[in-house]
């Protein structure tokens, strides 16, 4: 096991300036992500408050068990990615390269498990017709415009699902570099930023789950 020394960008004075810049940039990017979802939360609030009965009825037709399993899966993956960051931070001469690799690998695996569960949830809804807009043909909800609930449901969970896929891509890139020994106690910015992104994906789900499935 060995490590590859990181070269600081030519326009920075120091590695500390470089990593603190990268972190600030990542936090700003996460702000934009939250604001991107904020539009959907506003749409959620408006439609829910104008159609409370339809909303309550339609919401009870979601599969709470699958939602709970997915919540546990994502929280666990947040834990493993946090351990991965810790492993990179304390990686002295490459002795924790292996640990870092496996923690990232498990995180990606859990992300995949989330998508598999989501696939079964989605295919059930496609099958019975709990769909947005004109595609809606489910007859178990005795309220007008129940398709609007599923419009919001698919938009929110769909956009979140896209973020899970992107997160898997980012973590895979980090994993490949970790395998080459790029991360050690002197340089672990990509692991940290990838971890931050993954926590955000997790956090959004932690809001989506109660708002859609439980409330």
């Amino acid at each position: 096991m060995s490590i590859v020394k990181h070269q600081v960008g030519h326009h920075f004075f120091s590695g500390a300036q470089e990593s603190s810049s990268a972190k600030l940039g990542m936090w700003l990017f996460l702000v934009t992500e939250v604001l991107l979802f904020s539009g959907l939360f506003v749409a959620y609030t408006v439609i829910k408050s104008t159609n409370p009965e339809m909303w309550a009825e339609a919401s009870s037709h979601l599969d709470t068990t699958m939602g709970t399993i997915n919540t546990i899966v994502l929280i666990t993956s947040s834990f493993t990615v946090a351990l991965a960051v810790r492993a990179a931070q304390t990686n002295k001469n490459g002795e924790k390269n292996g640990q870092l690799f496996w923690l990232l690998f498990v995180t990606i695996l859990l992300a995949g498990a989330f998508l598999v569960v989501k696939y079964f949830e989605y295919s059930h809804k496609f099958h019975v017709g709990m769909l947005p807009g004109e595609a809606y043909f489910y007859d178990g909800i005795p309220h007008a415009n129940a398709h609007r609930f599923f419009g919001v449901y698919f938009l929110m969970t769909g956009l979140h699902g896209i973020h899970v896929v992107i997160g898997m891509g980012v973590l895979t890139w980090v994993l490949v570099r970790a395998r080459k020994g790029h991360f050690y106690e002197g340089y672990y910015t990509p692991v940290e930023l990838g971890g931050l992104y993954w926590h955000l994906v997790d956090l959004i789900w932690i809001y989506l789950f109660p708002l859609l499935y439980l409330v």
Partner: protein
Amino acid sequence: MSMTQAGFAHEGAQETNYLQAKKGLMSWLYTVDHKRIGVMYLASVLSTFLLGGVMALLVRAELFTAGETIMGADTYNRVFTLHGLVMVFLFIIPAIPAAMGNFVLPLMLGAKDVAFPRLNLASFYVYCVGTVMALYAVVAGGVDTGWTFYTPYSASVNGPVVMMTMAAFVLGFSSIFTGLNFIVTVHKMRAPGLTWGRLPLMVWALYATSIIQVMATPVLGITLLLLAMERVLHVGIFDPAMGGDPVLFQHFFWFYSHPAVYIMILPGMGIMSELVTTFSRKTIFGYRAIALSSIAIAVISFLVWGHHMFVSGQSVYAGMIFSFLTFLVAIPSAIKVLNWTATLYKGSISLAAPMQWALQFLILFTIGGLTGIFLGTLGTDVHLHDTYFVVAHFHYVMVGGTVTAFVGGLHYWWPKMFGRMYNEKLATVSSILFFIGFNVTFFTQFVMGSQGMPRRYYNYVEKFQTLHQISTMGTWLIGAAFLLMAGYLIASLKSGAKAPANPWGARSLEWAIQSPPIEHNFHEIPTVQEGPYEYPTTVGPAKH
């Protein structure tokens, strides 16, 4: 601005500059140098400005007579929509931050580059992709929704609306990347000694702009995404036929687009602060007030979106609150205008080309700002809403404000960018032509609007004929002014006199290095010891 001698260019000894440092097309396409990216942005936004300008000339030509003049009503709707979309999303939003800001921000900070050079290049390519998508939508039949994409019309009308909204979505990413990059650059890349209180006001303005870009653009992104989903899946969020709420779209749209008008004007205000001090030979009056008013504008701009919706079925109480907040946001703008005017007082004013544009800004922006107060007042807005008065108001702000500041900045930093001086006499002719043409075009529109001429209409009643014709003739003068400007600027690249390091005697860091700068800007990072406007002789009691 004083600093260690190492930062100054050695007179006479011109070194290989950033334009010559590497050769060939590929050296430009793969560059991560903020100066080259700025120049590529500049070339792009000038091209889109030409396209949007031609559309404006066509719109005005069509309105020369009532009924059909040169095009049918459907074509007219597409042409004015295209004018708005091109000018807003392709020209004015990236114009000052991405083109000029990219070039000058790291120089003003004493940095070798922005914090994320590769993200900077990515932003440019994302902008290119968005532009190509928008142009494709034009070729594929065009869009006639107006640049605001109001539902339910935009959710149901035929045409490549989805392509156009996705183009704006992609352009939003480019804008976010630039804003994010600038915020981090200002926080982390300042030279030693360059405290927040010593930053040039252009930097403060770009910083405030970036905050809005980062905070508002994602909301536009999700809005346009929802609009596209409404068209494709009929999800019932905006479309009343599916149980949706079309006014919700207006809330979403203006939550971005009102702050966005400050994305357009704030960087122009930054340029103003530089021009007014440099050409008055005097330190700025009220540095702190101008700097903080930029931040105040950025914050309050998020709270005024409802003033676009006074007649959209919003509650009267909401209208009153939005009206109050609208008056509030006028205060920081007024603070700036008054401080610039106070800076001129007893200054040693030179009327070089950049200053001519700065003075135009002071006059035109003030008219634009004050007429905004009329529109922010509930009672008068009901009468003036959706008339030419609104059109004239925002053109006084966007063209009379931002475009004049952009052109002023272009003339100011042109020698730094390309190392050449332009023909000062022709520049004067151009600025006078523009000033006359602009007022002829848009002042008449205030009159027409107050008499009830609705905006966007293809046809009009006979009593407006004369004013419409005068307005159209004004656009010919504006066109001539820009044609002349394009001529002498291009000629200067070939045959202009070589520019010295500091042709205007300005004090900020970018003038301390040679024109054009070397690839890495500074041989040695300078140490800053003073504010950016410390002119040696100040008449009267100095104000710090």
